[in-house]
C-alpha cells in the first residue's frame, strides 16, 4: 500500500490549526541549566540548557539567557529527555484497582464498534495516571481493548489535569483501534457468534467497509440531486469508517502474527486505507520489509511473550531488527498489562537486547509521537514543541530508573522531592497533589 500523503497532510493541518491544549496555569519560565540533553532527534547535547516558557520549549542550547522571573534549575549531572509517549495504554478505561466496575475498555456486545469513543469511558481519576507521570510518561494514546475487531476510537491525553476535558489533547488526529488474531475470535467464538475465526474477523471488517463505501456513494448521489425527496443518508455508526477511508483516521491495529499482518495489508490495499501502526506485533520482526514498504510502524513489548500462542514466537531482538530495516519502532505498555509507569523500562530492555541507546529513547518518545500523528508537537526536545520534559538523575535506560522531575507543558508535575515518591506509589487519586495545578 502506498503512503496516503493526503492523510498525513490532513492530520498535520488538524494539529497545526488546533486550539492549544487546555492552558496550564500561568507559570514562570523554567530554565534547566547545564543538563545533558537527549533530544530524541539523535543528537545528545552535553552541558546544555533548555528553556520552558508558555508551555513550549523556547530555547535549546548553551548558556541561554533567561527572561526575568525565570526559575533556574541547576541540572548539572542530569539527563533531560522529552516526555515519554505511550502509544498503547488503557489508563482510565481500565482504571485501578482492577475490578468489574472499572472494566470499561471493551464493549464486547458486537464485533465492530468503530463508533465507540474511549473518551466516553475514560476516568481521569485513575490512580495509575499519577504513577505513570511519575515514571516520565507525559502523553498517552488511550485505546479501546481488543475484544472487538473494530474496538472504537482513541483518546489522546496529556497526563496533566483534573478532568477529561483538561487532559484531552484538543485537535489531535483521530485514531481508531482494530484487533486481529486471537482476541476477537475468542470473545465471539466462545458464544457461537461471528467471528469465531480469523476469516470471520476479516469478513467483519470487509462488510463494514463495504457499507461505508455504499453510504459514501448514496451520500454523493444525494448531494447531486436537484430535488431531495428524502433526508441525506446518514449512518453515525459508519461515519468513523468513512473518515478512515478518506484518510482522516490513524488506524492502530492489535496484530501479532505474520499472517494477521498480511491480512491487514490485503484489506488496506483492497479498501485503500492506511495503517498507522500494528501493536504488540510480536512476529513483526519476521517481515520488516513488508512493514517498511507499507510504512507501518510497530508498537511492541520488549520481552513480554508466551502468554498466548500468537505471542509465542517473539524475539527480544525485534526492536533492533525492525529499526535496522527502517521500520518506525515504538515501545509501549498496554497498561495495565505492563504498568504505565514502567514504559521507560521497556526502552531499557530493548536497549539491553541490542537497540542503540538513542534509538531506545526514540522508541518511547519520537517514534510513538510520529506514529500517533503528534510529532510536530511532542516527542523531541526542539524549540516550539510542547514543554514536556523529564529530568533523570542518571541514564533512563538503567534498571529501575526514575525521573527526578517531570514537566508537562512547562509545569513541573513531579519533582522537588516533595511528591516524587508519593506519586510514584500512589494508589488513590489526589489530583491536586499530582498535577501541580494547585
Amino acid at each position, binding site marked *: 500500500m502506498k503512503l496516503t500523503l493526503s492523510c498525513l497532510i490532513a492530520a498535520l493541518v488538524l494539529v497545526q490549526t488546533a486550539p492549544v491544549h487546555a492552558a496550564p496555569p500561568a507559570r514562570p519560565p523554567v530554565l534547566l541549566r547545564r543538563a545533558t540533553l537527549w533530544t530524541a532527534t539523535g543528537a545528545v547535547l552535553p552541558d546544555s540548557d533548555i528553556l520552558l516558557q508558555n508551555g513550549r520549549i523556547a530555547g535549546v542550547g548553551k548558556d541561554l539567557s533567561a527572561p526575568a522571573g525565570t526559575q533556574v534549575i541547576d541540572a548539572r549531572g542530569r539527563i533531560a529527555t522529552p516526555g515519554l509517549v505511550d502509544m498503547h495504554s488503557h489508563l482510565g478505561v481500565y482504571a485501578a*484497582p482492577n475490578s468489574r466496575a472499572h472494566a470499561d475498555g471493551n464493549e464486547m456486545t458486537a464485533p465492530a464498534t468503530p463508533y465507540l469513543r474511549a473518551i466516553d469511558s475514560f476516568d481521569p481519576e485513575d490512580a495509575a495516571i499519577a504513577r505513570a507521570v511519575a515514571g516520565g510518561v507525559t502523553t498517552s494514546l488511550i485505546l479501546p481493548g481488543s475484544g472487538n475487531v473494530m474496538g472504537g476510537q482513541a483518546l489522546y491525553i496529556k497526563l496533566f489535569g483534573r478532568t477529561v476535558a483538561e487532559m484531552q489533547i484538543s485537535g489531535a488526529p483521530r485514531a481508531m483501534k482494530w484487533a486481529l488474531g486471537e482476541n476477537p475470535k475468542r470473545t465471539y467464538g466462545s458464544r457461537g457468534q461471528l467471528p469465531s475465526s480469523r476469516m470471520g474477523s476479516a469478513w467483519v471488517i470487509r462488510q463494514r467497509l463495504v457499507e461505508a463505501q455504499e453510504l459514501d456513494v448514496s451520500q454523493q448521489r444525494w448531494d447531486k440531486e436537484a430535488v431531495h425527496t428524502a433526508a441525506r443518508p446518514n449512518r453515525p455508526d459508519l461515519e468513523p469508517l468513512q473518515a478512515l477511508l478518506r484518510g482522516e483516521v490513524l488506524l492502530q491495529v492489535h496484530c501479532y502474527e505474520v499472517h494477521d499482518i498480511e491480512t491487514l495489508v490485503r484489506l488496506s490495499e483492497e479498501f485503500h486505507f492506511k495503517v498507522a501502526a500494528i501493536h504488540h506485533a510480536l512476529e513483526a520482526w519476521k517481515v520488516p520489509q513488508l512493514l517498511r514498504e507499507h510504512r507501518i510502524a510497530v508498537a511492541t513489548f520488549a520481552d513480554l511473550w508466551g*502468554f*498466548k500462542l500468537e505471542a509465542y514466537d517473539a524475539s*527480544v531482538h525485534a526492536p533492533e531488527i525492525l529499526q535496522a530495516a527502517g521500520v518506525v519502532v515504538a515501545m509501549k505498555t498496554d497498561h*495495565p498489562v505492563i504498568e504505565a509507569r514502567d514504559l521507560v523500562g521497556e526502552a531499557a530492555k530493548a536497549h*539491553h537486547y541490542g537497540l542503540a541507546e538513542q534509538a531506545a529513547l526514540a522508541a518511547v518518545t519520537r517514534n510513538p509521537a510520529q506514529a500517533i500523528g503528534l510529532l510536530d508537537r511532542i516527542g523531541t526536545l526542539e524549540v516550539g514543541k510542547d514543554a514536556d520534559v523529564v529530568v533523570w538523575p542518571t541514564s533512563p535506560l538503567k*534498571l*529501575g530508573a526514575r525521573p527526578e522531575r517531570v514537566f508537562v507543558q512547562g509545569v513541573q508535575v513531579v519533582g522537588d522531592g516533595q511528591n516524587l515518591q508519593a506519586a510514584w*506509589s500512589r494508589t488513590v487519586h489526589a489530583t491536586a497533589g499530582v498535577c501541580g495545578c494547585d
Partner: protein
Amino acid sequence: MRLTALAMATALSLPASAQAGEVLLRGLTLHLVEPAATVQNAEILLDDRGVVRCLSGDVTGARPPSVQAKPCREQAGSTAEVRDFGGKGVAIPNLIEPYNQLGLVEIEAEEESADGSTHRLANAAQVRAIDGIRLNSRAIQAAQQAGVGIAAVHPLGSSLITGQSAALRTCGATVDQAIIRSPVAVHARIGHAAKRDDQVTGSRSGQLAKLRELLLQGQRLAKAASSKQKLSPAQDDSLQRLRDDPSLPPLAEVMAGKLPLVVHADHADDIAAVLRLQRELGFRLQIAGGAEAHLAAAALAAQQVPVILTPGSARPNDFARLRATDQNARLLLQAGATVAIATEHTYDARNLRWELGLLVQQGVAWAAALRIGTLTAAQLLGLDPQVVAIAPGLPANFTVFDGDPLTYDGHAVWTSCGGTVWPQPRQR
C-alpha cells in the same frame, strides 16, 4: 510460525557445543555465596564432565578453602579450551526461582499446554507438580539461558490447597533427571481465585475456616501416626476414613513438620489471618505473593515466617495489592524477616536477576541480593546449600555475564547447568 517456534525450541534444548574436554575460564570476577566471597582475577577449570576441578584468584579477607591462590591455568592440560573474558566477566551461581510454574504452564491461554491448575477441589493436596511437568519448554530454556538453574514449580488454580511443588533443574533432559526434590511443599492460596470456584468457598473467612478444618484433619493423622496409643474401633474407623482420603496425608506431613505449607496471600490482612492460623496450629509456614507483606513485617519476623515476594516488584493494581510498594523487600529485611524473590509468570522467569537488581535499587546490598536469589531460595526449598556452591568436585552450576548481572548492563555470555555447558547463551 509453529515451525519456527518448535525449531527454535529444539535448537535451544541442545548445548551449543558438547563438553569435549577441559575448559578453562579466566578473566573473571567470581561471586560465591556458599561460603560468601568475591574472587578477583578468578580462573575456573572444568573437567571433561563439566565438573569444577579448580578455582583460583585473589580474595579480600578470608580465603575460602575451595579457592586456591595458584592459578588454575597451571593445572590445565595443553588441550584445554580457554575462554578469556578479559577481566570483564562476572560469574555468579545459577539463580533459584522459588515460586513459578515452569514446565507446568507453557502458554497460559492454551489449555493443551497449561497443566498448572486444579479446580473444583477445595483440597487438591494430592496433586503433585512432578506428574505434570513437561520439559522441552521455551520458557524453561529462556530462564536457563539467563542463568536460572533451579525452579520450584507448584500447581495453582482455584483450589484452596492446590498441591505439592517440586524443585527441578532447568537443564534436565528428562523429568527424572531434572527433579532434585519432590515434594518441596504443600501449597495453598487465600484470596480472589478460590472465591470464584463455588466448590471451594465464597469468602476469605470461609477459606480460612476450610484451611483450618483440613489442617486439623492432617494433624489428627499426624498424631495418630506418631502415637502408640491403642484406638477404639470407632476411633480407628474414623482415622481410616481420613487415611483413605488421598488429599489428607500431605497435610499430615505439613502438620508433622516434614513439609512447609506455602500460602499465597497478598493482602496484609490475609497474611495476618494465616499467621494467626500458624500460631494456633504450629505448622511450618511460608508466604508467597506478599505484595503487602511489609505491613505485617514485624509479625512475619517474630513468627519466623519467610516471604517469597511474587513478583519482587508488585504493582498496586488489585484490591489485594493496593498497598504494594517497591520498598517491600527492604522493609521486610529491616524488620528481620526472611525474604526470597520470585517472578510472576513462566515467561518472565528469565528476568529473575533483574527482580533481584531492583532490591539493590531499594538499598539492599548487592551481595545480599545475590544471596536472596541463591542461598535463601535454596534454604526455603529445603535444598542442599551445595546447589549454589561453586567448588572443586561439584558440577558447574554458574553463569558468566559481561557486566553486572543484576542490572541491564550484564548479558549472559556463558552458562553451565549441572555441568552441561552453553558457551554462547542467547535469548531468543
